């Protein structure tokens, strides 16, 4: 019988007894796990992110997603709404859930193809991802932190970026980047070849 990992144990403990200490340790364990075995997440990135990014930029995006996860702060005060005195705070860390979902993708790969997820073809990986997402009915990109599945989170993380916006419009819009006022009256320049591939 397979033993329960420290990460799984801490995740279960944090869910059962959600004290700050357990939650922090479960988050840290999940982040360690994602950083310690990046193959599955990178393989997932290759399956769900646009192929025109190329391998290097997909890897860079997955690394950026890992940094995002590592930087998540449960209970952080969120930006205030207008017209209300209610405050909101960041919810439980999604890292533990996403880490478990990566395990499930690995198990599905072994069941279906008797090989690790990263060793499958892109089409095989996409098929497993589609199966994993069958129960999720999202039509819009969810906010990254509220993505119910790690594949959707990876998509949301990329597609909400200024780089994705530029890629879609094939232009250097550079949303929310510091840009000289004088250049904004002109039509955005086309994407440089290096940025597109």
């Amino acid at each position, binding site marked *: 019988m397979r033993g329960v990992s420290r990460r799984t144990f801490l995740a279960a403990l944090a869910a059962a007894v959600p004290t700050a200490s357990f939650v922090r340790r479960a988050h840290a364990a999940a982040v360690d796990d994602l950083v310690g075995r990046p193959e599955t997440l990178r393989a997932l990135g290759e399956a769900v992110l646009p192929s025109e990014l190329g391998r290097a930029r997909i890897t860079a995006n997955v690394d950026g997603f890992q940094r995002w996860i590592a930087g998540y*702060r449960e209970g952080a005060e969120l930006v*205030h709404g*207008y017209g209300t*005195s209610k405050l909101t705070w960041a919810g439980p860390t999604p890292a533990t859930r996403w880490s478990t979902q990566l395990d499930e993708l690995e198990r599905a790969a072994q069941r279906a193809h008797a090989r690790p997820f990263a060793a499958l073809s892109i089409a095989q990986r996409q098929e497993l991802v589609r199966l994993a997402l069958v129960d999720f009915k999202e039509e*819009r990109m969810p906010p990254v*932190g509220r993505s119910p599945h790690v594949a*959707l989170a990876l998509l949301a993380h990329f597609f909400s970026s200024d780089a994705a916006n530029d890629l879609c419009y094939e232009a250097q819009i550079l949303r929310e980047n510091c840009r000289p*006022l004088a250049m904004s*009256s002109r*039509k955005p320049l086309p994407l440089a070849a290096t940025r597109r591939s």
Partner: protein
Amino acid sequence: MISFTKRRVVESDVCIIGSGISAAMVAQKLARTTKGKIVVVEAGDEAPALAKRYALRERFKSYGESPWPDDHLDGYEIDGPLQSRSMQVGGLAMHWGGVTPRWSPEDFRSRSLFGVGTDWPISYDDLDPYYQEAEEIIGVAGEQGPSSIDPRSKPFPMPAIPLTYNLGLLKEWTTQAGITMWSQPAAKNSRPYDGRNECCRNDTCSPICPIGAKYSPDLTWDRLRKANRITLYPRTMVRRLVLDERSSRIVSAEAMQRGAGSGAGTPVEFRAKQFVIAAGYAWSAHLLLLSRSSRAPNGLANQSGTVGKYLAGHRSQQAYLALPMRLYPGMSAHHSLLSKQFMRAPSGDKYLRHDLRVWESSVGREPRLRDDAGTPLLGDAIMKDWRERTKTGVARVRAYYDVIPDRSSELTLDATRRNAWGDPLPKLAFRDAPESAALRGYSNETLRALFAKMARAGGGTVLSGASGEGSGWQDHPAGGCRMGTDPATSVVDAWGRTHDHENLFVVGAPTCVSASCANATLTFCALALRSAEELAR
């Protein structure tokens, strides 16, 4: 063992309660025109320094975190639509959008001109020099609209923020639709101004400008403190003002030092020759109501019974229009076109005045996870679908329309909710005057028809629309201590001096008689500067 908490006494010539943008205007003008000792009392904490704002902005962008952490007081969840929970040095203008239109001359004379609402005791012409002064202090970049609908006596201190490529195209379209639009004035530097940076379209103006190109009151406080012209007391909650036993003058403000550090819980008594309440539409009236005593059982400055009454604001209609033009959303979501041509006389036989603004938008053009048939999409398919849908553009259009405030539109003390010191919290309810309530359907229908007409003029369609009526909220709230010439029906005179207490002023938002149909902060600043002139006399 019994412990005694020592009372601290602070004396000054002028004591300003609140540190938002109206307070900053008053303090800056008094510092320049008088030699008196000025103290500023703020319940909230210090705002993070400018140097920290890029990092805070990154957290906001990546995680939706508040870039102004801990800018609120615990235990202040109130009944009714509060504009914002934010309370810190600099006030709400730490996270404002920096949008600074002037109001229209008609806003001040709606009873005389149209038979609705209440005339202000001052005219647009009276306010014009103070508008100019405010624009120069905070640094407004603007484009003069047609003088017949956008009167001003002097040029803007800075040229307008240039229209983006997107707004240039949208302006051509609105011209086709018969609407004259121009660049929305903004308190953002179109060139280096007053020691601050030029705007570089970081485009997170609200909630945070990371480079200080947008005016925020902390910039004024930093400067005044460095020059030793004011003393600012953060984390200090004024709980009540105290009336002199033998006259109608205010003698002190009783406060409590907040927080967990040294001095926390220490009572502080601010004594001053003049007191200025600059705490916004909610907390100004709240403080006056809390300051009740045997001689003022309904609170201070309230012989008229109108403290907390006539809360004002405006409603809105908004729509997203699909247009057959290639736009590039992300160039600047905050900058807009503005028209005031509907702010003058009502165009129909019923009373409806409104502004009109147009922005670039990505609504309806975002990447999505399923196509129209509901088929799930992954990377390449998402990008292909996204590109296909972004061949044409979307404009966001919105109109604020004038709402006549009712006496029952009010802030009262809530006996069921109290803060940590046992003081009742405010309770807010916005209500339209009957003439506005009767016109709401007509107003919304007329604006929806205007948006549809605009869409048709560009060969487009209305994608979606919404009204801003949700929770009883009215935007850019004001009032609660309205100005007037008659002490029986108003709280302050035309200068912001309370009718009942010669050394007590209320400034900015609370003094408004009505709230026009456009963003209000510049008007609050102009009114505050006008009050400062009287204070200095």
